[in-house]
Each structure stands twice: as structure tokens, then as C-alpha cells.
């Protein structure tokens, strides 16, 4: 009994510790964003704000925040839609079709996960200029889809491999060609895997900084992660306003994760473990 309680205690402590590690930074962020500029410099950085002060949010929302938000939503939603479509089709072929080089092709795609994006920055920058997409939100979509495909194909291939073979055979007897099989059987049955891929990539791309920084220059073409630049001048940085922007940028993700959390966990498990 004592051992049991002891174990519960240890587990609970570990859980609370992890909760603190993950939430404290965000809490700090949110609280600091409520301070005035004055307060940030005068009081201790650990002090609570003197009053519930939304002045920073007012400033941020009066600025270009909604332009950035719009660009982010546009880029991320188109990218995620393309990622889901391409990776699920690729995953179906890799998981279910028998063709030569299936294995090597899968290995090659998955190997893409180990290519650091920074290595590709300069060629992609040059390429983007060349085809006239530099400094447009659409210039971001290509690289975003490309860097996300390896992990997405990997997750979905593992997921589709676990769909029973008999279902595919039943569909074959029901007069389904490869496309009908994909759209009517495999796509609906991969729902949890697809949500995982969609949410995971949405989070990654929502926070993506380096491509957005390199491939756009005018303020009205930039995405949310670059919004912080507006509050950082050469001689002065508006710290609470920066934190207010960051807080606002995080919110959509937190909401999305809260809604889709179950799918993400399930899909991740399906991707990594069998059964």
C-alpha cells in the first residue's frame, strides 16, 4: 500500500513538474504582455502586472496584426491541404501498391527528414526569385509543402499499412479501381492519421520563421512569426507589445490543439508503434 501511494506520489509530482515546465513560460508571456513598458523596466521581471492593462493588445491590434494573421492563415491552410492530399496519395501507393523500387523510394522520401532546412535556404531563395514568387505569401507554400512531406508520408504510410488487407480486397470485388479505393476506403479510414498530419504540420508551419524571413521582405507579405519585428526598433524594443503579439499568435494553435489533441496522440502512436 505504501509502495503504491509512494508511486502515485512520484508520478503526480513528475506530472506537476512537467505541467509547470510547459505552462510557466506561457503564463509568464501572458502576464508580461499585460504590463506597461514602464513597468517592464522599473519593477522586477518576476513581478505581477500592477493592473489588468490591455494597452499593448490595443496597440498590436491597431497595427498590422490582421495582415500577418491573414497571410499566415492563407499560407498554412493551402500548404496543409496540399500536404495532406499529396502525402496521403503517396502513402497509399507506398503502403499498398506493389511496384519495383517501392522500398527504396520510401526510404528516399523518409531520408528527406534528415536534410536540415537551412542547407536549402540559399538555393530556394534563388529559385523563388527566379520564378517570380519572391516576396509573395505563395512563395512560401512550395518550400513548406516540401519540408513537411517526409514526416507526413512516413506517418500516413505506417497508418495505411495497418488497414486490413481484406478491406481492400472487398473493395476490389466491389468494383473499385485504385482511385475509388483510395478516396472511398483508404482516405476515410485514415482520418486519425490525417488529422495528426494536418495538425502537426499546421503547428510547425504556423511557427515557421526562417523561410518566411528569407522569402518575404515587405511587411504586408509577412506571416505572424515575423510580426515581432514591428516592435523591435534599432534603439528601442517594446517588450510587452512583442509579448502580446506572441501571445496572440499562440492562441489559434492552443485552441486547435485542445480540439484535436486526441487525434494527434492516437495518430502519433499509430505512426510509431504497431497496434
Amino acid at each position, binding site marked *: 500500500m505504501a509502495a503504491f501511494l509512494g508511486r502515485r506520489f512520484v508520478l503526480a509530482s513528475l506530472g506537476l513538474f512537467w505541467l509547470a515546465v510547459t505552462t510557466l513560460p506561457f503564463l509568464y508571456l501572458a502576464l508580461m504582455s499585460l504590463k506597461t513598458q514602464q513597468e517592464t523596466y522599473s519593477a522586477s521581471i518576476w513581478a505581477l502586472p500592477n493592473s489588468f492593462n490591455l494597452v499593448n493588445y490595443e496597440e498590436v491590434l491597431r497595427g498590422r496584426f490582421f495582415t500577418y494573421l491573414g497571410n499566415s492563415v492563407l499560407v498554412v491552410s493551402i500548404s496543409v491541404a496540399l500536404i495532406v492530399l499529396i502525402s496521403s496519395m503517396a502513402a497509399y501507393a507506398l503502403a499498398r501498391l506493389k511496384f519495383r523500387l517501392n522500398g527504396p523510394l520510401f526510404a528516399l522520401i523518409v531520408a528527406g527528414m534528415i536534410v536540415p532546412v537551412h542547407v536549402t535556404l540559399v538555393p530556394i531563395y534563388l529559385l523563388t526569385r527566379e520564378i517570380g514568387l519572391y516576396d509573395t505569401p505563395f512563395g512560401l507554400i512550395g518550400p513548406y509543402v516540401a519540408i513537411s512531406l517526409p514526416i507526413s508520408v512516413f506517418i500516413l504510410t505506417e497508418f495505411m499499412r495497418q488497414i486490413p488487407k481484406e*478491406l481492400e480486397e472487398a473493395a476490389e470485388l466491389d468494383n473499385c479501381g485504385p482511385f475509388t479505393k483510395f478516396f472511398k476506403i483508404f482516405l*476515410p479510414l485514415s*482520418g486519425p492519421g490525417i488529422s495528426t498530419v494536418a495538425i502537426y504540420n499546421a503547428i510547425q508551419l504556423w511557427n515557421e520563421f526562417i523561410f518566411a524571413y528569407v522569402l518575404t521582405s515587405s511587411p504586408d507579405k509577412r506571416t505572424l512569426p515575423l510580426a515581432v519585428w514591428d516592435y523591435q526598433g534599432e534603439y528601442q524594443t517594446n517588450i510587452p507589445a512583442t509579448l502580446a503579439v506572441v501571445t496572440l499568435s499562440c492562441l489559434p494553435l492552443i485552441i486547435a490543439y485542445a480540439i484535436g489533441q486526441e487525434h494527434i496522440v492516437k495518430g502519433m502512436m499509430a505512426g510509431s508503434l504497431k497496434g
Partner: protein
Amino acid sequence: MTSISFSHVAKNFGKVQVIRDVDLDIAPGEFCVFLGPSGCGKSTLLRMIAGLEAAGAGEIRIDGRLINNVPAAERQVAMVFQNYALYPHMTVYENMAFGLKQTKVPGPEIKARVAEAARILQIEPLLDRMPKALSGGQRQRVAIGRAIVRQPKVFLFDEPLSNLDAALRVHMRSEIASLHRKFPSASVVYVTHDQMEAMALADKIVLLHTGRTAQERGSIAQVGGPLDLYHRPKNRFVASFLGSPTMNFLTASLVGADASGAAVELSGGERIALPVDARSLDLGARLTLGVRPEHLSPAADATAQTIVRPVEMIEHFGEFSFVYLTSGDGTPLIAKVQGETAMPADKTFRLGVPAGCCHLFGPDDLALPRVAGA
């Protein structure tokens, strides 16, 4: 009415030959059961008819039409899978209607066919449910319903009852039999490893070998009616596969053979006469006498041919008892005796061996032919 024929069909998976030169005719409207131990290739044969597996060699015909290269969907066959293979994201109705929609059957007709199948299978209240909300037996019915609505020429069943519990299995078995009576024009090919199912359902049993050697793997051991296989096994494999407990095999040597029958001597010195033609063999040849446990009975009559063996153990089941005896040559000997049997005082049992129920297998394990009229 649809016939199916195999001629010289063979199949390899890599280097393993799973089907070896199969010749087989299934008559129109026949209920044909592929029976055999696991790994004998029975499911592979079925999947070849369905078009889910390509024949490596030979020809498969449905109604005389060569179908080796015809896509699965165009063969007019419907299959019921072992694990049902219902689409988990569709309701029962959608599961049954899916194949018809894919083949562009008009909407009102789909509705009518699904309703009719649901009525026959008594699953009308389930039509709006998802498969995960159904019990095993209900899923099985839906899977059968999905096959019925397609109005196929051939029904294919791949071990459809093996995931059900024992009581339900017996019940569904009788339902499948009555289904066959409702659709007499469709041929049925049914795969099972359960000899009871095969005996109960089949017009024709195709018993396949796994074989002790690669030579025998995937070939047909015997084709015939259930009772044919039971009473007239062509070889020792068939004799041992059908029947439970399995047939007793006693070593014997040939001591007499003429046109009316043969006589053999067992290791205990008893002589057994039986109506088989052993004239092709030399006297003294080592043979195997086969007799089923249920045909050995306590001998009341001293004039009948009998064997006497020491009893090792008796198992009582109320309705019958299994008497385990020592056969003398090291092989087990079991008698299935009606009613209850007490252990005899001298711990030996005298068993009658009816001549007509004995089988004699030659050195090549093939059954010796019966004499005419026996």
C-alpha cells in the same frame, strides 16, 4: 447455373509451391467445400476463383469462360471474408449498397435488393448501425448480406465461421445451408479446416493435403461426397483427417488374398478378414489396417472377429466413452463405446472388428480397392 473448373492449376509463393496441378470440376448449384489442414492451399484456391490471387499456371473457368485474366469485379462472384471485412466507416446499409453503387445499379433497385437481403437475414433493424456496434454474428450476417445483394453466380466463403463462438457457429452453419437452398442456382465454394462444417454443409468435399513431403503439398487428396470420404477414403491421409477421434491404424501383414477378400494378421496374432482386393500384393506384405474408433464395439458375440487388448484408461462422456487401449505395436488404439463402460476386472477389452468397416492401406498409403459388391 454456374460451373467452375480448374485444369492443371498451380501456384508458387516464391519458391514454395502452394498449389500443385489441381484438376477440379464444381457442378452448377453445387455446395463445394475446400477442406484441409492449415497451409494446404485451400484459401489460395478460393482466392484464385475470386480473382484476388493470380493462377501461376493452368486454367480456371467459370461457366466455361476462361477467367484467368478477368478482373475480380467482373467475375460475378461474391466473397465473405473470415474477418468479415466490413467497411468500418459505413453503416450496414451503405456496406451492402456500396458494391451496387460502384457497378452503377439504379438507386431504387439498390434499395429493393438491400431490403430483400436484410429481410432474408433478419438484419432490418440494424441497417443504420455502424459495424462496430454489431456483435460477431450480426457482422457475419451483414457480410453475407453484402454478398447476396450482388446476386452473384458464385458465393465464396473463406472460413466464415471461425471467428464465432461454438454455439453461434452451429447456428450460422444451418443458416448458410438454408441460404443455399434459397439461392439454388448459385454455386457455393466454402473453405474451412473444420471437418464438422464440411460434413454438414457439403455436396462435395475437396480435401487438400499439406502433406509430409513437399511433393504432396497443395494437391487434392480426394474429392467426393462427405460420406464417400468418410466410408471410402482413398488414402491414409483422408482416412486420418476425417473423423474424431482419428482412425486407428494397426500394422498388419497379408496372410491371404483372393477374389472375395483378404485376410491379415495383426501384431497380436489375430486374423482379420475384410472385403478388399489385395491380390496385387505378395503374401507377407506389411500393410496398415484402418478402423474407426466408433466401429470398434465390445464384442458380445464370440463368433465375430475380435481383438483383445489391455486397457490403459477410459474417458466418460455420458453419451459415450473413449476406451484407450495398448495396441501391441506401439500405435495408440481408441474405441468409442456407446454409453458408460466400467474398467473390466482383468483390465483387457475384447473388441469386435466388423469386416465391412475395415480399411486396408498398402505400403504406399493408398487404400486397397474394395471387392465388387462390398
